[in-house]
Structures are given as C-alpha cells and as structure tokens.
C-alpha cells in the first residue's frame, strides 16, 4: 500500500497599508518597541475600532486575483483568548462570513498545472510580540504590531506533497507582491504559513491532521512538511495513531515538537463584533477595484512571449517580480529594435552583475535607459558584443552613458570598407604563403586571416565586414 499526503495551508499575509487595521498608528517595521501604539491598539477601556477601508480594498483585490467570490456584505467577529500580547483579550477577525470565498490558484507541477482551491480570505488584526529570550526570566511585550492588518488566506487540502505546497506558496507570494497588497517580506513576518498535514493509505478516508504553526521560510516549510509526513507514516506503520495537535517546527534541531493537543485547544468563543457594523461593498466599488488590477504574472508571461517574441524561459525569469517586468518593459521601450537582445542582456549580463554585487534590481547603478543606450550601439554595430560587455562593466562603476565610454575608451568598431581593406592588404602582404594556400583551396585559412585582421585592428574591426571583405580580396 502506498501513502498519500494531504496538505492544506493557512497563510497570514500582512496587508501593506500605512496605518493599522483599526486605528491610525503607523505599520512601519522596526521602530522602537511600543512607539507605534495608541489607546485603541493598546486595548484601553472605552476605545473602539474603526476599519481601515484600504486594507479591505486590498483584500478584495487579492480575492479578485484568485478568481474568488467577493461577499458584498461581510462581518467581523471576536476571537477570544488570553495572551499578554493580545491587548483586548480578543482578536477582531472574520469567522462565518469572510470578505472573500471560493477562489483558486493554478500552480506549476511536473506535468503542467494543478488547480489549488482557496476556501476563503478573511481580514483580521495581528497581535503584538512577546519577547522572552535573554531577559532574565522577565518577558517584554512590544505592541507596535498589535492591530496591523492581516489577511488570512486558507486553502483547500489540495496539495499532495511538500513540493506542491511550496509551489502554491511561491505562487501566492508572487501574486501578493504583484498586486502590491503586501510587502510579503518573510523575515519580517509579513508572510507566514500554518500547514495542516495528514497522511492516509491510498483509497482510505482522510487521516488525523496536525497543524505546523507559524513558519516563515520556504525551506523550513518544506522541511517541516516532509518531517511531519515521515513522522505520521512511522507512527501508523508502528501501529500507533496520529494525535490531532498543533506543532512547532524547530529549525535548529530540524524537528517539530507538540505545542498543544486537541484537548488543550482553545475554545475561541467566536461571536459577532458589536463595535463594527457589517462591511459593505457595492458591486460598482468591486468593479472599480477590479479595473485597477495590475497585470498578473501569468498574463505578463504570455504577453512577453507574444509581444516581444521571448522564449517561455526568458518570459518567466523576467516576470518573477513586478519590478523586473517593469524594468524589462522600460528597457524594451527604449531599445525597441530588438526585444530579445534586451532580454538576453538584462538576464545574462545585468542581473548577473547585480547578483555578484549583492544588489537588487531596484538598486541597479545602470538604469534601463543607460542600458538601452548601450544596446543601441550593439545594434548599429558601433561596437562589438564583446566590447559592449566591457562598457557595461564600466557603466556599473560610473555614471557615464555608453557613447561617452565608447568614445573615451576608443572602443568604436571600424566598419569603414576602406580602412578594413587597407588592413587586409597589409595582412595579405605580410603572409604571402597563406594567401597562396587559400587560393589553392585551403578554405580553412580564412579563420587565420580573420584573426590577423582583428589583431591588427586591435579588436575594433567589425567582424562581419572583415569576413566579407577578406573573402572578396583573397579571391584575387
């Protein structure tokens, strides 16, 4: 009997609004603890939440991007539990009636695509942060994050292995970045994942699941899921039963440990949030949000293939982020003669050099306009491709444009027939034996002459023209 794995994911995505979900405090990351707080997000007596409508709009946009239903009326609920970094003793969330339901994401798998259902997306507020380490047994609480807007994106249990789970997460991560609804910085906790994992023998009903909590790295998530699948299979094969529980992944020891069992699970006592009226959108408002939807990665990829004639590989690389796609488009617009050359140079030369320098595209010292200026000169044969790479090296270190560098470094390619002919004549005169040999049928000697002419021109002669003129002059 073979084993099947069933995985469902809950992803908490921080919505990138300027202010918090229910008050005016800043959501900026990294401020001094408790400096971005107010009576509302501190849970002071008598203080009331007011919804940040921008967070709701971004959640709607996300829902539209995964082809989901937008509930024109959704409701907020209170999820009750005590924890020191939860100031009100309840979290405002959406339980029975979330803002988004019934969507999907198509993820790439070996033999094509697989559709992963998205059950729902609901809005909620983040809690603060408790710090216990290195404080001599005292705990500190930072409430800067308290009330930061989140959307929780809940998938169907449609993934069959860790690779599919990661593919789904990467697809989702790319999507929220493209939509500009989240910074999605995993290290800053802006994109965190809970994984529900169970195993069963083929054809059997669903097994007991466990929940791996709060993972914020693709690598850890993959490790954690694989570890959990093996752990569960081992338990069952040894005649045991999987216990329904929440587990924590320890990325140092590469193992998971139990957090709390079903018996210890919270009864969250959800009930409607009386401080907030139902959230209402009109169809017109939803349509307006849809109209503002940016092009999504899949659409961009296809357009890059058809409009610019790029290979699927190049199109995929360039559409990994919204920034790189925009960068490419601006490059192609400035050098419209050859979109493929633009793609090659951006992928192989620019991104390579940036990678070596440890820089992001946004930090590139060479703008798309400057690179286009260089590609123009490659296109019109002013310089050779080899020389152009040298120019790009210089551009990475200076603010000069391509023409200035070509001029000052004397890299201009010689394409003048007279000048090239003069060099050829000299080379022929210096090598009468080889001329004789070529004329006697040794065609392979052409390469020797090309090399000699290029050497004599110090690499500046246009190789195509050298070829052409040599053939003409060697004929005699």
């Amino acid at each position, binding site marked *: 009997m073979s084993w099947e794995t069933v995985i469902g994911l809950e992803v908490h995505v921080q919505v990138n609004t300027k202010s918090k979900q229910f008050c005016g405090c800043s959501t900026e990351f990294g401020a001094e603890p408790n400096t971005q707080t107010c009576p509302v997000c*501190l849970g002071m*007596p*008598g203080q*009331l939440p007011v919804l940040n409508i921008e967070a709701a709009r971004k959640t709607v946009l996300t829902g539209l991007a995964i082809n989901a239903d937008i509930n024109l009326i959704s409701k907020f609920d209170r999820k009750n539990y*005590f924890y020191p970094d939860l100031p*009100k*003793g309840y979290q405002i969330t959406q339980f029975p009636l979330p803002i988004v339901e019934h969507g999907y994401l198509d993820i790439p798998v070996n033999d094509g695509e697989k559709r992963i259902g998205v059950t729902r997306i609901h809005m909620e507020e983040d809690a603060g942060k408790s710090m216990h380490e290195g404080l001599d047994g005292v705990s500190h609480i930072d409430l800067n994050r308290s009330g930061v807007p989140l959307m929780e994106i809940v998938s169907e249990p449609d993934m069959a292995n860790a690779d599919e789970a990661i593919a789904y997460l990467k697809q989702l991560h790319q999507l929220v970045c493209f939509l500009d609804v989240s910074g999605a910085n995993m290290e800053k906790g802006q994109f965190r994942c809970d994984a529900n994992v169970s195993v069963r023998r083929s054809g059997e009903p669903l097994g007991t699941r466990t929940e791996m909590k709060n993972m914020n790295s693709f690598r850890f998530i993959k490790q954690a899921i694989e570890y959990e699948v093996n752990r569960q299979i081992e338990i069952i094969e040894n005649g045991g039963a999987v216990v329904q529980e929440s587990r924590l992944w320890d990325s140092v020891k590469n193992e998971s440990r139990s957090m709390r069992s079903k018996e210890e699970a919270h*009864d969250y*006592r959800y009930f409607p949030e*009386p401080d907030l009226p139902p959230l209402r959108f009109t169809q017109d408002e939803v349509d307006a949000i849809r109209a503002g939807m940016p092009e999504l990665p899949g659409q961009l990829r296809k357009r890059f293939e058809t409009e610019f004639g790029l290979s699927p590989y190049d199109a995929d690389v360039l559409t990994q982020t919204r920034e790189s796609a925009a960068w490419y488009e601006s490059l192609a617009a400035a050098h419209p003669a050859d979109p493929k050359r633009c793609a090659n140079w951006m992928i192989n030369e620019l991104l390579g050099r940036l990678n070596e320098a440890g820089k992001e595209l946004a930090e590139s010292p060479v703008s798309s306009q400057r690179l286009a200026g260089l590609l123009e000169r490659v296109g019109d044969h002013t310089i050779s491709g080899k020389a152009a790479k040298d120019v790009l090296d210089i551009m990475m270190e200076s603010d000069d444009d391509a023409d200035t560098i070509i001029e000052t470094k004397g890299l201009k390619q010689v394409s003048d027939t007279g000048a090239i002919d003069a060099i050829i004549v000299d080379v022929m005169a210096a090598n009468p034996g080889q001329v004789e040999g070529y004329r006697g049928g040794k065609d392979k000697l052409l390469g020797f002459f090309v090399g000699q002419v290029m050497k004599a021109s110090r690499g500046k002669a246009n190789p195509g023209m050298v070829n052409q003129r040599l053939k003409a002059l060697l004929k005699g």
Partner: protein
Amino acid sequence: MPFSTLSKIKDRLDAGATTAVAVAKTYLDRIAAFNGDLNAFVDIDPAHVLEQAEASDAYRTKHGARALEGLPIAIKDIFCTQDGPTRCCSHILKDFHAPYDAHVITKLKEAGAVLVGKTNMDEFAMGSSTETSAFGPCHNPWDIERIPGGSSGGSASAVAAALVPAALGTDTGGSIRQPASVCGITGLKPTYGRVSRRGIIAFASSLDQAGPMTRTVKDAAMIAAAMSGHDSMDSTSVPDAPAVDWLGACDKTGMKGLRIGKPKEYFVDGMDTGVRAAIDAALAECEALGAEIVDISLPHTDAAVAAYYVIAPSEASANLSRYDAVRFGHRCDNPDDLLDMYTRSRDEGFGKEVKRRILTGTFALSSGYYDAYYIKAQQVRTLIRQDFINAFAQVDVIATPTSPITAFKLGEKTADPLTMYLSDIFTIALNLAGLPGLSQPCGFVDGLPVGLQWIAPAWREDVILGAASAYEAATDWVKAPINFGGEA
C-alpha cells in the same frame, strides 16, 4: 437654589444673577454635607470643580455663554476623563487614570459645562441597585434605607438629593431609566447610535448608550443636545442620524392627538398595585390632555429578560478580557506564572456580580452552547425589534411603567440575582431594539417615587420629549418635596 432645574440655573447665569463659581459652591457645599449619607459620589475634587467654574465665568465674560455655560453636571464613573480617576467602581481599575476624555465629555466641556466628580454605580454597570460598587452601596435620598436603582444609582441619587442639578448616566438594560424612576427624576436613554460610546467603559457594546439624568424633561433635552452627534471614531455612531430639535420638542404641546400605545404585557399580575395605579392615573391624565390611548401587544416581551441576560453577559465577557493585569489595572502580588497572574488578579479585582456575568457570557459563547444560547437570544432580539416596528405602525409612542416596583431595601435582593434581574423587566426590551426611552416621575407609592416610561421609534426622541414635557407641565410630580437635605 439647590433644587432648581438646570434651565433655571442657566437663566439666572445668563441674566447675571449668579456666577458659575457661586453655583458650583452651592453644590459643593451640599456634596460635602450629604454625600456621607448617600455615597453618591466616589470621587470629588472641589478645587478642580471651582477651577472649571472660574474658567467658565471668564469665558462668559470674554466670549458669551455656550449651551451649558457654567452648569454643573456630575459624571458616572464609567466615563473616561483625563481629570481624576476613572474606575467603573471596580477594584480592578482602582488606580486607573484615563489619558483621554470620552467623546461626550469633550462635547460637554466644549459646551461650557462644569464637570463635577464621579458618581457611584454598580461595578462595570452590572446591577440594578448600585450595591455591587467596589466603593460601597449608594443610598436613595427618598429613604436612605433603600437602593437608588442602578446601575447609574449615584447619578440618580445625586440629582434627586440636589447634590448636583444634572448628571450623566449610561443605559444598557435600564441603567438610566430605572434609577431615575426609583429616585423620582427624569432620565433619557437616546437611540442607539445617537451618542458616541468612545471613552465610555464598555459593558455590552450593542446595548450601551449614554444619556442625561435631570430634574425635568427640558433639562434632559438641553444635555442630550450637547451630547449627541456623530463621532467618526465610534463605528456604531450613526453619521446621518435624523436630527432632533431637542429644545423645540419640549414645547409641552406634544400630547394633542398623540396615539399612545399601552402594551398589555407591561401591565401584568404581580406588579405592585400602587405602581399600576400611578401609571393608570398618568395615562388618564394624558387622555385628558388630548391623547388617545391604544391597547397594543408586544408579544415577545416575556423573552426579553432571558435574551438580554445572554447577549449582555456574552459581550461583557469579551469586553472585560482586557482587564488582564498586563498593561494597567490591578495586578496580584507575586504571581507564580502567567496563568496565576491572570486568575488571581481577576479574582481579586472583580466583584461577585461581574464574575457571575463573565462566567454566564463565557458559558453562553462556548462551543456546543453557542447555538442554543447566543444564536437563540439574537433571534429573540430580532422578534422584539419586530414587535416594536409592528406597534409603531399603530401608535406614535408607547407608555409603560419604568419599573414594576418602587425602590427596595438595601440587601433585599442581593442574595437572589434572578429577582434582581427582574427589576429591569420593563426597561430591557427597548435596549434590545435600540430605541429611545425616557423615565419621568408620575406619582408615589408609600412615599417612594414611581416612574412613567416613554418609548418611541428610533430617532424620534422628539415624540418622547413632546409627550413627557406636556405631562410634566400638567402635573406637579417634579416639584414634589423630598424629605432630605433641607428645603425644596
């Protein structure tokens, strides 16, 4: 002067016959003399009151009078104020000072009012007798052996004894109207959403609403006018609430042709016969003034108390979770660990009735019970709302007794919470429906005041004020002498 109405004090101030400082001194003297008997105030800072009065006199001289210029108004201990403590009469907030004013406090300050101390109340507004206060029970000036009602008992007692001419209360299930009734004063609970709840310590968020407690209908209208209005920082404060001409509505002509509904469910066997006689006499008076009395039915009334005692504690159980000893409020000594800190701090900080409601609410929301209690209660709430909609298709306003009984003796019902809960039987339904209500004096039984309750459709406080001002003008109940603290 102490037994003057707010309007008369305003007239005298506007006429230059007295000053805010003189008025403040009068009442401060009475508080000093009589608060020991009543325990109506749990915090009073005479110097700060006089400062405000001086500032008001200066403002009047310089800029002229605002709507409540120089008028002393006492504040229930549930309203957050930057000045002085805000404790909700609970040990758990015994050292709490709010860093902000409630929205209505800001509005009263902007209207020129002089805010006088904090009044006693049931802890977290949970009670009908002001006996659950952490600062000891409050007494009814009509008979200091008796309760002043609750939860705004301190405000009612203070106004009835003329320790202050007006006060603010809050009303979740009758907490303005029932104490007004048993203390012989007027109390108005506005339509839910009319007055901002921001900065008012929450008991049951979907029911709480602040309102004035005064000697007369017009006094209540004056304060309501200053309190109400949209607050963008309270999402349940209604932005486009129909406006009311608060003072214009008190023109005493409201009774002519008025169709007054008399719900049979509010005139039941077992209610105090004296109370019933007083209400019947009041309705006869209304008829004499030109109103038509229409027998109506609010068929789901008997389920209101049960639904309320599920919904209010459920909301309260969550609202009171923030008192967790982490950021503010009482913290127990030397907690062993987090759980010990939570349980011991809350056990020490909350009183018995508050704990009872937290437990009730927690139970009602628990998995497995939620549908049977909370959902069912919400369904009842919808039916009750519909009852009123149906009734208001027939009548303009509804009149009932505010309370089935007059003030009972201190300690009489503390052992039996269910009997205590039934004292709100006539006031709860309109909170569940979000409607405005007012209680005004309409007689006495054995020397204890009886209250007449008016209920109107949402946003129609004007109908209530019209009827109540006409009834008040035709009767002498608000002028009835009280045998407490000197001349009336």
